[in-house]
């Protein structure tokens, strides 16, 4: 049994100048690269496969297997694209990683590129995080200077360039095919699959797309081997990962633990729900993963555990809401997020979110009509599972799961505004004059 917390990725975040190459190397950085370059590319892929590492971007697809899908006989160049779009509400793990230790990602990228025979790799980072871009740009420059990037890396004959690319504000660009279109200088709208990116991705060439955390996990796996990795976590959810606790907890933050830890354990480490309050509902992995309640505190936070509870592990973004919170209000806010972020390509997502937002506003204002809960569920059912990509499924998940667990709160919306049932000032972390709540932003 591994320890309760197992900092690997976050182990160096506290060291001085942790983002610079010298401290990173001092802590053992770039050793995995040297080791990997002495292996064959297939061996590297094999190690990652054996480790059971699954994608940390939300879907949990086995990383090594993804790499092995890249066709070797395809004459086009191969590309690695790291997904640093991190825009799923609640998700806040990749940004601290990139801020504090960009070299972990760079080392992982070089190893991954070597494994798939890629010579140009990209990091696509959402645009709204300036300092992350500075750190990443500087780290790439350092890596070139140190000979880890460019031609003939460490004398291995392997060449690699890394391009740091800024997005410009679009959640959908986290969806891997939309990301590719965006990276090609187009509107970030998802592409038809097949062909899958592994066959025809960036510039119609074979492309591997992985999350920041997935690729950053690779150097440690190369260093310590697959069985080290599988000694943490559960059988099908191997290794460690970053859990992000936010919301009404005493001490929100990042907790790097073996997969399978429970929210009860994490809450305990975070000092529990804020003073004098109790847990009402939570998301296991961002707003797109159906919400859970205190009934689910002891379910392992791994892929299988969450699937068993009718939700998903997602990005392990645990957003915690206490009893002061109106479920109707948060659901509306998420719906507004999805309406704002829908790319507009397909009917159900574009129109469904437009409609659901209006209905949810009625619920919030206590102006919904009798029977509107069922109508909302039916509209949701015409959207969920019908859209071009998974964005709308996420949008529907937060609505349907909220109604599943808190139907009566929605029904109260037939008569009573949510801000009367759950005075909004009580949910805030600081004192908000009640008048503001009524007459200001919320009225």
């Amino acid at each position: 049994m591994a320890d309760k917390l197992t900092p690997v990725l976050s182990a160096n975040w506290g060291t001085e100048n942790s983002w610079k190459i010298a401290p990173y190397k001092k802590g053992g950085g770039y050793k995995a690269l040297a080791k990997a370059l002495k292996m064959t590319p297939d061996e590297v892929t094999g190690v990652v496969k054996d480790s059971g590492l699954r994608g940390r971007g939300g879907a949990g697809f086995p990383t090594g297997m993804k790499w092995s899908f890249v066709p070797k006989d395809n004459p086009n160049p191969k590309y690695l694209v790291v997904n640093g779009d991190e825009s799923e509400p609640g998700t806040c793990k990749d940004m601290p990683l990139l801020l504090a230790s960009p070299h972990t990602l760079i080392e992982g990228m070089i190893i991954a590129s070597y494994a798939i025979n890629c010579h140009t790799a990209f990091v696509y980072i959402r645009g709204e995080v300036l300092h992350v871009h500075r750190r990443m740009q500087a780290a790439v420059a350092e890596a070139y200077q140190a000979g880890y990037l460019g031609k003939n890396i460490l004398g291995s004959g392997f060449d690699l360039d890394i391009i740091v690319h800024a997005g410009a504000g679009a959640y959908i660009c986290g969806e891997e095919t939309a990301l590719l279109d965006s990276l090609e200088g187009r509107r970030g709208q998802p592409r038809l699959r097949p062909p899958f990116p592994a066959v025809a991705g960036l510039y119609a060439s074979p492309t591997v797309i992985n999350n920041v955390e997935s690729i950053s996990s690779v150097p440690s796996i190369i260093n310590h081997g697959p069985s080290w990795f599988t000694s943490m976590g559960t059988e099908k959810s191997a290794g460690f990962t970053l859990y992000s606790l936010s919301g009404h907890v005493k001490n929100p933050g990042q907790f790097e633990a073996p997969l399978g830890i429970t929210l009860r354990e994490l809450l305990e480490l975070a000092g529990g729900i804020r003073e004098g309050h109790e847990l009402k509902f939570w998301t296991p992995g961002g707003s797109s993963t159906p919400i859970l309640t205190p009934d689910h505190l002891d379910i392992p936070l791994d892929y299988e555990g969450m699937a068993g509870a009718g939700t998903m592990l997602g990005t392990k973004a645990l957003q915690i809401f206490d009893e002061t919170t109106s479920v109707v209000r948060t659901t509306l806010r998420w719906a507004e997020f999805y309406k704002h972020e829908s790319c507009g390509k397909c009917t159900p997502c574009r129109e469904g979110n437009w409609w659901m937002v209006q209905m949810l506003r009625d619920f919030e204002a206590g102006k919904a009509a009798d029977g509107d809960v069922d109508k909302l569920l039916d509209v949701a059912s015409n959207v969920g599972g019908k859209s071009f990509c998974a964005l709308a499924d996420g949008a529907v998940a937060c609505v349907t799961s909220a109604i599943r667990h808190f139907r009566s709160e929605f029904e109260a919306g037939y008569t009573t505004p949510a801000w009367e049932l759950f005075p909004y000032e009580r949910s805030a972390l600081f004192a908000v004059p009640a008048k503001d709540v009524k007459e200001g932003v919320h009225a």
Partner: protein
Amino acid sequence: MSGHEFQSFFPDSGGVDMTDTSTNIDATTLAEMRQLASRYPEARSALLPMLHLVQSVDGRISPAGIEACADILGITTAQVSGVATFYTMYRRRPGGKHHIGVCTTALCAVMGGDALLEQVSEKLGIGPDETTPDGKFSLERLECNAACDFAPVMMVNWEFMDNMTPEKAQQLIDDLAADKEVSSTRGAKITSWREAERVLAGFSDGRADEGPSAGEASLLGKKIADEKGWAAPKGGKA
């Protein structure tokens, strides 16, 4: 209600503001655009960075900027416009020297983001997507900015302003208005929105070393592990 006005008529949508044709794009900018285009295996990939550069030069996506991108990349102005209007970071009207963002997605909203937006809006005298008449501030209602463990979150020129309170927001605006030195909680000293856009375009400003490595919340788990003596197996640190 949520505070988002439900808008249903969109008289001005569909493109950038053609009434303002002013531009600062000069030969240097064009050379930098070409340089960006040459960084990628296929030039069009540089479009997003080029549009960031246009904003850093013109303070918005200007007609001249759209035309320059189309010209350099060999695509149509309609195609550039389609991209420029897709992404929320691209502005149709001039942004302020400082671009203030307040996150109001569910978690931040509940924890105080709504009240902060209200406060900042009142203080600046402008609503979201507006710019103060003196050109000092523009305001935006943000969707989740990947800093939820620091909620409620504000951004200034896309630098993190974590764990905001009404008092801190008040001070922040006052200091910026008075051109006092302000630093991001997890970033660098605040300069201006345009300078930020230049970095996002891919031109480093050499200030990566400012600010802490990580915020307190980011280090929490590691701190507890250290206290408890927990670690990954066999000195698992890579």
